[in-house]
């Protein structure tokens, strides 16, 4: 049976706990000045969406969830469900809001996502690490400002809000790291 050491824990890793699949949403390392270290995680039950906290002795192993991650193309949202397609077989599946979670902020039609299937149902969706999205709202740009300091909030076409440099304007395409929700750069055309 596959398992992960707590040293391999990172956001998005899938664990099997008490018969349910979970995904790590937050992971921290707690250690006294001397002595045993612990890994404290917040994990989301992929069936119910509920988030719980667990603590492990650092270095221990935890059973991996027997789920299948597949690369699928995001097609569209019908108001209730998000539809994806397996690019080789053209097979389509629909994910509900529990499975999508915050990923909806980064979904752009045609992009390839990692869809996690458990018993053939989608239970989680991870967007690409980097997405290019259009800025739909932000304060007017400041000409000549090219420094890294400062910044301002910008709303993107998906509804996500990220901090961007002052020189970014409405209508521009920006590249965002979906893991941190941080602006990476201006997208080149």
């Amino acid at each position, binding site marked *: 049976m596959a398992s992960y050491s707590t040293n391999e824990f990172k956001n998005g890793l899938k664990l099997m*706990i008490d018969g349910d699949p979970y995904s790590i949403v937050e992971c921290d390392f*707690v250690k006294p000045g*001397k*002595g045993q270290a*612990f890994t404290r995680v917040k994990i989301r039950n992929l069936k119910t969406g509920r988030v*719980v906290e667990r*603590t492990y002795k650092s270095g*221990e192993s935890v059973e991996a969830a027997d789920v299948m991650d597949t690369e699928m193309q995001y097609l569209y949202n019908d108001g209730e469900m998000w539809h994806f397609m397996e690019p080789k077989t053209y097979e389509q599946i629909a994910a509900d809001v529990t499975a999508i979670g915050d990923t909806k902020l980064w979904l752009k039609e045609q992009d390839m996502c990692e869809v996690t299937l458990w018993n053939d149902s989608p239970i989680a969706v991870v967007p690409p690490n980097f997405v290019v999205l259009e800025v739909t709202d932000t304060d007017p740009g400041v000409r000549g400002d090219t420094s890294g300091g400062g910044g301002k909030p910008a709303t993107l076409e998906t509804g996500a809000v990220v901090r961007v440099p002052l020189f970014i304007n409405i209508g521009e395409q920006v590249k965002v790291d979906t893991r941190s929700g941080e602006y990476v750069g201006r997208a080149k055309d």
Partner: protein
Amino acid sequence: MSVNLSTLIPESIEADWMPSASQEILEKRAYFLRAIREFFHVRNVMEVDTPNLTLAPVTDPHIESLQTEINGAGNSDTLYLTTSPEFYMKRLLAAGSGSIYQMGKVFRNDGQGKLHSPEFTMLEWYRPDFDHHALMHEVDELIQYLLKTEKADRITYRDAFEQYTGLNPFNVTTVQLQNCAKANSINLISQNMEKDDWLALLLTHLIEPQLGNIKPIFIYDFPASQAALARVRIKDSDEVVAERFELYYRGIELVNGYHELSDSQEQRKRFEHDLQARINTGKPVFAYDEAVLNALSAGLPDCAGVAAGVDRLFMLAEKLDNIHSGLSFTVKSR
């Protein structure tokens, strides 16, 4: 013959080249490091810079060293990156250095988090003729100077446990500790917890977050089982303590200090005890440092020593919410 490069070269890494800290923070950090050096300069404490590589790593069963190979001419060996300059500095003390400090990088093969990085800046200093109380006083002066804090409080390990958990750590049973964790909804999954592991769990989860919210606080006189490299003293009929202290501010552990053990035979026993614990828990073992034992035999002056996490101090000074925001770059693994 042509070689297909793609089979030889790993996939390139996402090129996020910008520093993690702003220019303003980097300038403040430079000033902060200079202020620390000034603090020791006016006290006549000499700066030293000992090697980062060693043949004999720390034996502490809860600290893992990063390992590397050296391949010189007729000279190949396994070396380790130091997790603290302690052994080298004790050799300097035994050779007659007097008061010394060192500020530099140390390395740990450990988890990463808001307060942890595998590579970090440590400030370590030693004061001949100081005991742990005298050194706590000096640590407090440094903290007041760097963080503009009030005079620190002091509490024994026993009192801290009694105050926050109602348990006496010196005669509590593992079952009582386990029940306390459960009653405070700590969802521990792990088995095979020794008493000191339970104490560490309660300390990190229940006590630490409440320590030093207004002013810094020292915890001192730890259980002898957690002595590490500190002297041990019989305090009471039911209480054998290690002359060790830690400083907490805003729930964060900042320094760890000892009235230093100078008995080489006792030190050898502790090395061997550590190695046995490593074998029992399936951790790597290696030869321990005979050079530091020889230095203790030659005569380590009666002294106290302390190590402080500079990145955490700077984080608190600048009110950052993690150490990485105060570093030029964060070392990320894939």
